[in-house]
C-alpha cells in the first residue's frame, strides 16, 4: 500500500506560526506523525511521500495546493491519501479537507483525515469525506491515527463502513435505511416514556439548525413598488416548456404575463404531486393571482405587477436544491428591478 500524507508546517517540522506562510515542500517518505501512521497501517504500508505546507499559504492558495497534491499523489502511484489529523487547527483543517476532496474526486482513491468538532473543516467537508473525530488534544495522536488507519483499511478493501459512532467519523449527514428488531410503535413508546420521565433518549433524527435570514426593510410606498408573483405550486404554461419536475424540481421558470388580466386554465398546467391540483388547473389565478394584483395595479394600490411570474414545484425539495433555486430567483428578480414578491405556496 503506497500512502501519501499531507501535514502543515507545525506537524511537518518546519516550525510554528512564523512558518505559516511556507510554500509547499514535497519530501520522500514519512515525516512526523507519518511514521506512526505507517506503523499503524501495518505491514506492507509505506508512506512514500509527504507534502508539507504552511497554513496561511494553504488557505490562501487552496486550488494551487490541491492541484499540486493531486499531481504528487498521481506520480507516486498512491493507493491512499491521508491528511493530518488537524485537531482544532482551523486553517489546517480547511486545507486538509480541500486536498482530500480533490484527491478523492480526481483520482478516485480513498482519502482520510481527522479533525475536532470545532474545526471549520468539519462543516465544510463532512458530507464528502471521512473525517475522524480527533477531539481537541494532540495527546490523543496515536489513538486518532489508529482509527484513521482502521477506516482507511476498510475503505481500501471496500468493506462496508459502520455507523459514525462505531467508526469514529463525523456523520456525512446522509440517511441510510435498515431493518431493526423493534417496531416504530415500540420505539415511539420507549422514547415518549423516557422524555416524559426526564430520562435520556436518543432521537433518530436531529433537527437541522438554520441561520436566520434577516427580513429586508418594509416597502415604504407600495403604490410605487414593482411586485412579482413567485410560486412553488408548479403552475407552468401548457407543455411545461422548462420541464419542471413535479417532485424535487431542480429548475424554475419565468413566464410572461404582460397585458394579461386573468390566467385561463386552458393555457396552463400544474407540475406538482403534493396537492389536489384540480382547482388550480381550473383557474390558475388561485396560485398565481394575476387577476387580483391587476386589480390592485388599476386601483393604484401597487405600482406595477411585474411582467413575468416565477414558478417551480416545491414538492419535497432537498434543501440543496431549494437554496440554489431561491438564490437564482432572488438574483434574477433583483436584476429585473422587482421591489417585493408575493410568494404563493402549495
Amino acid at each position, binding site marked *: 500500500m503506497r500512502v501519501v500524507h499531507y501535514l502543515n508546517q507545525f506537524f511537518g517540522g518546519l516550525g510554528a506560526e512564523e512558518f505559516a506562510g511556507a510554500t509547499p515542500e514535497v519530501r520522500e517518505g514519512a515525516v512526523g506523525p507519518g511514521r506512526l501512521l505507517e506503523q499503524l497501517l501495518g505491514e506492507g504500508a509505506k508512506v512514500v511521500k509527504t507534502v508539507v505546507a504552511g497554513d496561511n499559504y494553504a488557505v490562501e492558495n487552496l486550488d494551487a495546493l490541491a492541484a499540486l497534491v493531486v499531481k504528487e499523489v498521481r506520480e507516486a502511484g498512491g493507493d491512499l491519501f491521508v491528511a493530518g489529523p488537524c485537531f482544532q487547527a482551523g486553517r489546517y483543517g480547511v486545507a486538509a479537507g480541500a486536498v482530500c476532496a480533490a484527491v478523492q474526486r480526481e483520482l478516485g482513491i480513498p482519502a482520510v483525515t481527522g479533525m475536532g468538532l470545532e474545526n471549520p473543516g468539519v462543516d465544510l467537508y463532512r458530507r464528502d469525506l471521512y473525517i475522524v473525530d480527533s477531539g481537541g488534544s494532540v495527546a490523543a495522536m496515536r489513538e486518532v491515527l489508529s482509527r484513521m488507519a482502521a477506516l482507511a483499511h476498510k475503505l481500501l478493501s471496500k468493506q462496508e463502513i459502520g455507523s459514525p459512532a462505531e467508526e469514529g467519523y463525523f456523520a456525512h449527514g*446522509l440517511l441510510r435505511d435498515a431493518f431493526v428488531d423493534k417496531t*416504530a410503535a415500540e420505539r415511539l413508546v420507549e422514547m415518549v416514556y423516557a422524555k416524559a420521565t426526564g430520562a435520556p433518549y436518543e432521537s433518530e*433524527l436531529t433537527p437541522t439548525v438554520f441561520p436566520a435570514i434577516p427580513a429586508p426593510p418594509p416597502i415604504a410606498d407600495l403604490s410605487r413598488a414593482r411586485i412579482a408573483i413567485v410560486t412553488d405550486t408548479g403552475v407552468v404554461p401548457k407543455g411545461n416548456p422548462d420541464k419542471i419536475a413535479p417532485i424535487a424540481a431542480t429548475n424554475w421558470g419565468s413566464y410572461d404575463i404582460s397585458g394579461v388580466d386573468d390566467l385561463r386554465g386552458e393555457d396552463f398546467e400544474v407540475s406538482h404531486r403534493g396537492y389536489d391540483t384540480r382547482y388550480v388547473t381550473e383557474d390558475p389565478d388561485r396560485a398565481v393571482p394575476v387577476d387580483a394584483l391587476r386589480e390592485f395595479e388599476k386601483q393604484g394600490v401597487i405600482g406595477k405587477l411585474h411582467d413575468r411570474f416565477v414558478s417551480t414545484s416545491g414538492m419535497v425539495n432537498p434543501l440543496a436544491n431549494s437554496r440554489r433555486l431561491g438564490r437564482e430567483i432572488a438574483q434574477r428578480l433583483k436584476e429585473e428591478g422587482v421591489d417585493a414578491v408575493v410568494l404563493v405556496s402549495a
Partner: protein
Amino acid sequence: MRLTLAIHPIEELRFGEATRLDGTTLAIDQEELRRLLLADGGLESVDLEVVRPGERCRFGAVFDVVEPRAKEPADGADFPGILGPLRLAGRGTTHVLRGAAVSVIQDGSAFGRVIEMSGAAGEASPYSRLHHLVVVPHPRASLPRRALMRALRVASLKAAVYLAKAALGQEASTYEVYECGGPAESATPGVPRLAYIGQIHSFQMVAEPDEPIFYGSNTIGMAPAALHPNEWLDGAIVSSYFNLGVETYFYQNHPIINELYRWQEEGKVLLTGTVATMAASDNRDRERNSMIAAALAKWNLAADAVVLTKYGGGAPHADMGLTARYCEELGIRTVVQVSDMSTDRSAESALLFNYPEVDAIVNVGRGDTLQWVAPEVERVIAASAGAAASLASLERLTAGSVCGVTGQQGLSRLRSFVY
C-alpha cells in the same frame, strides 16, 4: 370503557357449502357472500380467492386489508356509520377471526402496493402470515370514481363482517380485554399520563363527499376529536381512499395503541386517551387542527406526553410538527414518527418542520431504498389480465411497495440511520 376481543384463531379458510366456523377452519359459502356483495348494485361481478400463508402468491393492487370482526349484536354496530347504525365503538364484545384477513384488490393504483406471501419480501410483512380471502371486485364501468371507491369500501367491510359472523355464539379460544379509565383516572406518582394524537386523513387529496373515514364521515369540516383508544380498534375509523400505507387492519390492531396498553398493563404508564386529527390543505385549518388537537390532549386528556403520527406525505408531516409544537408549548412532551422527506437522502432535508422543542423523532425512512428480488410466484391475483401480467413480471420489490412493511401506524421495523 371496556372492549373484549373474543379471539377465534383461524388455521384454514376454504370454500364450502355453508359459511361455518368449525374449530379453526372457516368454510365460506361463496355464493351467499357474492350475493351479499353484489346486492348494492355497484359491482358487476366479484371474484373470491383463498390464499394461504407462505403460498407462492402475490396479489394487488391492494385497496385495503380488513380483519374479519363482528360485534355481539347487543354490544354495538359493525363499522358504525358505514355498515351499521351510529353506535359508540369500543364497548362490549367483538368476535375476531385472528389469523385471517379480507384483502380487497383494485385495478391499478397510484401507489400499487402488493401483498407478497413468500420469500424475503413476504417475511418482512405480517400479512404473509395470514389466511386471506382475496376479494376482487369488478365495478360497473360507468361508475364515477366516488361511487366506484365507495363500492370497494363497502365490499371490504361487508365481507369482513360476514366472515366473522360465523363466530357469533361460539366460545372463543382467548379473550383480550382493552380497558382504560381515561383522563379521570389518577396516576400513581411517577407514572406518566400518555395519549396518542393520530392523523386519520390528509386533505392533500380531497375526500369524496360520501367517503367514509370516521364513523362514516369524510372528516371535511371536522375539528379534531378526542376518542377512547378502543374506538380506533373497534371500527370507528377506516383508511381513506388516498393513503400512503395505512390499512384498516392496523387500525383494528393498532401497533401504537396496543403498545401503550402493554405499558399500561405493566403499570409503567397511564393511557388517558387519543385524539384523531386531520392534515389540512390550507393554513387556517392547519392552525386550527393543530391547536385544537394539542388543547384536547392538554385539557381533556390531561396528558403529560403524547405520541404523534401523520397520514401521508409532506403537508401532514408539517402539520404533525406544528401540533407537536403546540403540545410542547402547553407543557406536553412529544415524540413524533416521521417518514423522511429527503429526496436526496440528506439528513438536513428529512424534516419539514424546525422546532427545537420537537426533538424526539422516530424515523421510519423512505421505504424505497430497501428492496428485494421479487420471489418467484405460482399464483398472481389482480383485477385485470393486464395488472396480473405486470404483477407477475415484477423483478424487484421495494419495502414501501409491500403492504405491512412500512406505514404510518407504527408497525414499521424500518429505521433511517444518519451516516
